[in-house]
């Protein structure tokens, strides 16, 4: 019984319930001897393409310690959210011994793997990391406000339903290409009314954690602090003074969050005040909060931002002199043969042979 580790373009068949779906593993565009896969702490996510049709899918293969029976009911609950803005990945199938016995007999690694749509785009953390060396084209005060507004509307809609993502962070937010729309990923541990707690309670991600997050954040208020930081990152990233002092894949260094003095906070507050003083007041309120329930609701941000967004649409902003910046792909020159070289793909295929 083979490990699930497809070669690029390898055919993959998944039998789920009465459906049989045929895919191939998409090659990594930067290393075409490998299938495109992204490894995180809990899972490896492979990109699959339907053999007939144009659909791209993500197959999230859980690592051994995270193959938990609860994933089946979690996925069922999440499916109900798939129509909400930003929740496209909630349309999903979980492969279980009950609904995919043939597939799992062939490849036990796929137990509790999750099949869902592949969301194309940059993660917000990727934009932050690259932005200090360039930027996202076009990314100015206008697109910043649109992006932040769309994000706030998405999270506020969840908030209104008593739902929280519980691990909002730059790496879990995808910005759709050529747009200011966002999609949330890594949604398995979301708080939903009446849903049982996950086996591992989220504690947030460094750079977005409230002072209380270390105790676990799985509640309707769990997103308030992280959303505040993310909204402010999105709103101010067009400002070169903000970009210049950004930490890494988050704007704030984790340990400076909610600390007494922070020059990054000062720069962000200045940039926010230029947009609307109510925004800097909201950030101050979140920054100084002692608990997540003391943080402003995401709905409070949404209210201010939709007013700004309407101002943009109404043509109140003069954008002619706004700065914009461009992302470029990373590349570095290199060469040099040593002893002998073989193609990585051939080498890996040889390995499979053994």
């Amino acid at each position: 019984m083979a490990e699930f580790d497809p070669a690029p373009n390898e055919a993959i068949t998944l039998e789920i319930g009465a459906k049989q779906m045929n895919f191939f593993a998409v090659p990594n565009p930067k290393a075409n001897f490998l299938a495109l896969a992204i490894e995180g702490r809990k899972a490896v996510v492979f990109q699959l393409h339907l053999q007939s049709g144009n659909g791209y899918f993500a197959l999230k293969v859980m690592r051994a310690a995270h193959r938990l029976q609860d994933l089946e009911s979690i996925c069922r609950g999440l499916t109900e959210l798939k129509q909400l803005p930003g929740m496209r990945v909630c349309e999903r199938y979980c492969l279980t011994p009950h609904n995919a016995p043939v597939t799992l007999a062939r490849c036990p690694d796929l137990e509790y793997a999750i099949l869902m749509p592949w969301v194309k785009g940059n993660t917000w953390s990727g934009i932050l990391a690259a932005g200090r060396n360039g930027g996202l084209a076009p990314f100015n005060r206008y697109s910043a406000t649109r992006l932040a507004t769309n994000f706030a509307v998405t999270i506020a809609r969840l908030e209104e339903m008593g739902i929280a993502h519980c691990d909002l962070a730059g790496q879990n937010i995808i910005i759709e290409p050529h747009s200011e729309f966002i999609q949330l990923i890594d949604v398995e541990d979301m708080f939903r009314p009446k849903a049982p707690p996950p086996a591992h309670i989220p504690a947030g991600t460094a750079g977005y954690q409230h002072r209380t997050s270390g105790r676990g954040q799985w509640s309707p208020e769990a997103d308030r602090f992280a959303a505040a930081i993310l909204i402010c990152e999105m709103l101010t990233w067009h400002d070169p003074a903000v970009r210049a002092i950004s930490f890494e894949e988050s704007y704030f260094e984790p340990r400076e969050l909610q600390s007494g003095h922070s020059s990054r906070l000062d720069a962000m507050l200045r940039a926010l005040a230029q947009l609307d003083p109510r925004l800097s007041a909201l950030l101050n309120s979140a920054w100084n909060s002692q608990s997540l329930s003391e943080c402003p609701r995401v709905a409070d941000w949404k209210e201010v931002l939709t007013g700004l967004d309407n101002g943009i649409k109404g043509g109140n902003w003069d954008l002619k002199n706004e700065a914009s910046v461009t992302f470029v792909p990373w590349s570095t020159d290199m060469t040099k043969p040593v002893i002998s070289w073989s193609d990585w793909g051939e080498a890996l295929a040889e390995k499979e042979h053994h």
Partner: protein
Amino acid sequence: MQYERYATGDTPALIVYLIDISSSMEEELSQGVKKIDAVHQAIDRVVKRMVRRSMKGEEISRRYRLAMLAYEDNKIDVFNGVQFIGDVVKNKAPRFQPAGRTNTAAAFTWARDLIERELPQMKHCPPPIICHLTDGQFNEGSDPEPIAREIMNMGNDDGKVLIENIYFGPSAAAGYSASDPKNWTGIKDAASLSDPYAQALVRMSSPFPDRYMEVISEDKYKVAAGSAMFIPASNEGLLELAFVMSNTTPIQPSASLIA
């Protein structure tokens, strides 16, 4: 707590591979597989895993920097210094033809000098890791142990440089006999092994940092706390464990607490 730093595009991890390509690496490791072939497979698996851990959308981030020295009594700087993982995979995979004697001390001296040059720019990065793949029979040059100890005393304020040894010698000599690699509990005491070369490699291995143990246990391996970063590469399962270990520089995780 040490070894807390994340490998990121701004604070990449540096992993230095030292590959023994002396003539004894032409010998069989198991079932018709030569030691050097197992090394080639190991390199390919490591590179594959690093790429996966470095993907940002469809881009490979600059999260890992690699250096690789192939050595016998001569030395070959495979990547001509240090390269980002995204650049390594633009080239072809290295394949070595074993020959000569085993000058491990010279290889560790090369690694020490490289790390000495790199450390001043690595103040905010995870400490470097040396991953040494060998069958351990040093038969040329001086004793490598003092140089390894010197390297293990280097570091930054996140921790000392780590040395991991992947042992391509006989499995019995490494105290390994379990049929299930996931139940292997590791080696804490060099004296528990019979082979003097294996003993030396254990002494030249750093203990696993707690932070790494967390990541390893997520793959359901049972390596005991305090074990040396010494892995007998006697079969594929253990090789996989070795890959996990040389890749466990923590990437930015979503922290979670056990409910």
